[in-house]
């Protein structure tokens, strides 16, 4: 029986209906909601797409429904970024953003770039990519919340607390929406009294804006072979703390980047220290996930980093107010996949538009969302002609590849791969690319292997002894995790799936000494001794920060991050 709801004054055409849909496990009666455009992820890309789409609707006096699903408990809860924001896309999207009180409180005033050794800091000329005149030091979480209120004013429906679990396909194999996660399944897999089946949210067009290593994006890229003509994506893990420091230590608008210590020459990464508003400093360490030493702990490297005399001076007397971590894309130009698939497209970091030398991805993510929205509007408004074999958002592929996003990423494409020559080689290559060839070199470098293939066996790796935390400058990981506000209902199946437990024992533990217990920034993975004294992997799924590092770095890709019940995860507000 189909019930048709026509909600007066509402801009979406909604159909509530109960369909008996067969899943592979059990028959589930699911509600179905229908929209014109469905967007997974209320981040900068997703919200920019929603806003642009509604703007196009208003221009053409057309009424089309947009639904944005967000797994965080509120918009911004899962958003973490440096962030020195380039307002280029925002100016295009909402030219009167200043009048609309966009939270761009702190203009970037001064850029500094250092190479650190254990005791000293050598200031180098700031690379041109790191000149931030005209940019702002922001909290992306805060900006995203503001974008959400702008979107809602235009009639976009945003639903936080609902995790899109997987794509829904029609009989021709086209993506026609997503299904949200069930609520109320107990740890043992049985339904609790509070069980609510997930809902099918159908869209004529579906945009995936899940951020780096999105779970549905991963499924879609595999199914439609979107990465068959590009390099595999490469990744880094960014771990960030926001400090409140005494006023005399704070210099609003100061933007500092460092390379070198504590990371060794073979591990690509660096730190950022951004002075925000209200006496706060955002600082973090970004470590490439193709590091080789299984004993490396990115979290501990960040703690070590803070003890450097130049850094500790900045933080003395301060306190950490929030902590978090998220993986980010480093593949750049070479790893841009095919973006449009039957029924939708990838936008933002789900595709991967981060400019690595600038370490900025927000402006490109927003622009990709806007271009996809324009393409989606063209399709839904019936104004485009399609040839054989073209998918709905084919024009987005073209407009993106002809946009400044593509040019920008192409210019910087050889910088990150150059660092496989080590720090010095990488910096030299970067200088040549930037100053001599100005991004127009006629070759393209590639990264030799994927993150999960890079680990050396523990037997040939050097153990790293990290110092104990002092509780003032450096902290133990669980104290930090508490500052992310992360939590999940404990009585649900663990969302981190280990496909083969034998591989954990034979490969993760025996060969690599359990690297996940070190790279996870939330202490989700722990090896504890069972009754027979054998080390067993314990998964503390409740701590998860949704950073996706395990999904990326696990040597045999044996750990799969799946989406937990909506509303769980971190509660970032100023990240």
């Amino acid at each position, binding site marked *: 029986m189909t019930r048709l709801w026509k*909600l007066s004054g509402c801009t979406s055409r*909604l159909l*509530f209906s109960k369909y008996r849909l067969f899943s592979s496990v059990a028959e589930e009666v699911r*509600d179905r*909601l229908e929209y014109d455009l469905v967007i997974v992820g209320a981040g900068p890309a997703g919200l920019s797409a929603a806003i642009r789409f509604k703007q196009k609707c208003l221009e053409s006096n057309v009424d089309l429904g947009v639904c944005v699903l967000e797994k965080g*408990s*509120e918009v911004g*809860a899962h958003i973490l970024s440096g962030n020195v924001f380039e307002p280029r896309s925002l100016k295009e999207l909402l030219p009167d953003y200043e009048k609309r009180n966009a939270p761009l409180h702190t203009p970037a005033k001064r850029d500094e770039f250092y190479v650190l050794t254990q005791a000293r800091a050598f200031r180098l000329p700031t690379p041109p990519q790191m000149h931030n005149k005209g940019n702002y030091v922001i*909290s992306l979480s*805060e900006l995203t919340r503001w974008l959400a209120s702008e979107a809602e004013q235009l009639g976009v*429906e945003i*639903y936080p607390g*609902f995790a899109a679990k997987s794509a829904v396909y029609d009989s021709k194999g086209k993506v026609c929406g997503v299904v*949200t996660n069930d*609520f*109320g399944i107990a740890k043992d897999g049985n339904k*609790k*009294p*509070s069980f*609510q089946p997930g*809902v099918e*949210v159908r869209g004529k067009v579906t945009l995936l804006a899940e951020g780096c290593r999105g779970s549905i994006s991963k499924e879609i890229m595999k199914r439609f072979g979107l990465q068959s003509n590009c390099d595999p994506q490469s990744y880094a893990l960014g771990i960030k703390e926001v400090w*409140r420091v005494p006023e005399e230590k704070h210099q609003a608008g100061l933007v500092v980047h460092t390379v070198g210590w504590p990371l060794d020459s073979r591990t690509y990464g660096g730190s950022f220290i951004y002075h925000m508003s209200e006496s706060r400093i955002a600082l973090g360490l970004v470590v490439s996930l193709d590091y080789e030493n299984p004993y490396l702990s990115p979290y501990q490297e960040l703690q070590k980093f803070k003890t450097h005399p130049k850094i500790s001076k900045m933080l003395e007397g301060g*306190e950490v*107010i929030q902590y978090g971590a998220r993986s980010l894309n480093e593949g750049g130009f070479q790893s841009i996949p095919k973006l449009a698939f039957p029924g939708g497209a990838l936008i933002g970091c789900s595709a991967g538009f981060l400019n690595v030398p600038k370490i900025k991805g927000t402006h490109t993510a927003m622009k990709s969302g806007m271009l996809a929205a324009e393409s989606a509007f063209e399709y839904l408004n019936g104004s485009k002609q399609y040839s054989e074999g073209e998918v709905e958002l084919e024009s987005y592929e073209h407009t993106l590849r002809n946009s400044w996003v593509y040019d920008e990423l192409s210019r910087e494409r050889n910088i990150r791969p150059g660092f496989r020559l080590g720090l010095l080689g990488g910096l030299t290559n970067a200088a040549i690319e930037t100053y001599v060839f100005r991004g127009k070199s006629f070759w393209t470098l590639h990264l030799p292997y994927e993150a999960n293939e890079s680990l050396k066996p523990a037997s040939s790796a050097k153990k790293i002894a990290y110092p104990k935390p002092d509780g003032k400058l450096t902290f133990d990981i669980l104290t930090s995790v*508490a*500052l992310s*506000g*992360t*939590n999940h209902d404990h009585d649900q199946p663990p969302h981190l799936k280990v496909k083969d437990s034998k591989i954990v024992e034979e490969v993760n533990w025996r060969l690599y000494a359990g690297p996940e217990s070190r790279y996870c920034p939330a202490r989700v993975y722990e090896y504890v001794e069972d009754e027979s004294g054998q080390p067993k992997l314990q998964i503390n799924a409740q701590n998860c920060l949704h950073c996706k590092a395990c999904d990326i770095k696990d040597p045999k890709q044996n750990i799969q991050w799946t989406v937990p019940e909506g509303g769980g995860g971190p*509660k970032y*507000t*100023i990240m």
Partner: protein
Amino acid sequence: MKVLVTVKRVVDYAVKVRVKPDGSGVDLSNVKMSMNPFCEIAVEEAVRLKESKVASEVIVASVGPSQSSEQIRTALAMGADRGIHVEVEQELPPSVVSRALKFIVLKEKPSLVILGKQAIDDDCNQTGQMLAQILDWPQGTFVSKVKVEGEKVQVTREVDRGLETLELRLPAIITCDLRLNEPRYATLPNIMKAKKKPVEKLGLKDLNCDPLHGIQTLSVFEPHKRQGGNKVESVAELIDKLRNEAKVI
């Protein structure tokens, strides 16, 4: 019968709060807020009464800032029928909130008022009790079981001595404890339907409620950090430390 249930907007239970640098209160800027967990339980109980046809209508009320409308919408999505939002920007103690609620009770005439036992931000545990006093209604607090039978309601209270069962004549006040029920999830279709449910907005003036109260917060500070413990080697050393370091003997 009509049921009135109250909800409060508080800091989310998983968030670590900090004190404002000037010690005037807790820093609530940029902090995730949610419905008080005990209020969630209260809403769930009210909705269950409606589903078992004991209650004919569930009204949800909140006394709080403009953003409290989010919590009212969540309660509506869980199954309440309509909302009443008393908008006040300043923080009010239970003595004033209960006075505001009294006016709502007199206007709506519910037979049962269900509240959470306490809010997790101030831990006062007073609003339900004060409301019962000023209405001169019977109250069942820390309730873990509710059974309505005609003009009476039987409640089981969780008290220090164990479980106490009381019979209250309606109309009555109930405050909920943890084990009363497990609140349902608000589903996506219900959240959409809730947008259309009516929410009445009122100010304290509309209720003739005087916000004056006799409580002034002097200062807020974090609890003193725990010192590490010390192991002592002998009784003599223990006495020495108790006398000279801890200065308690």
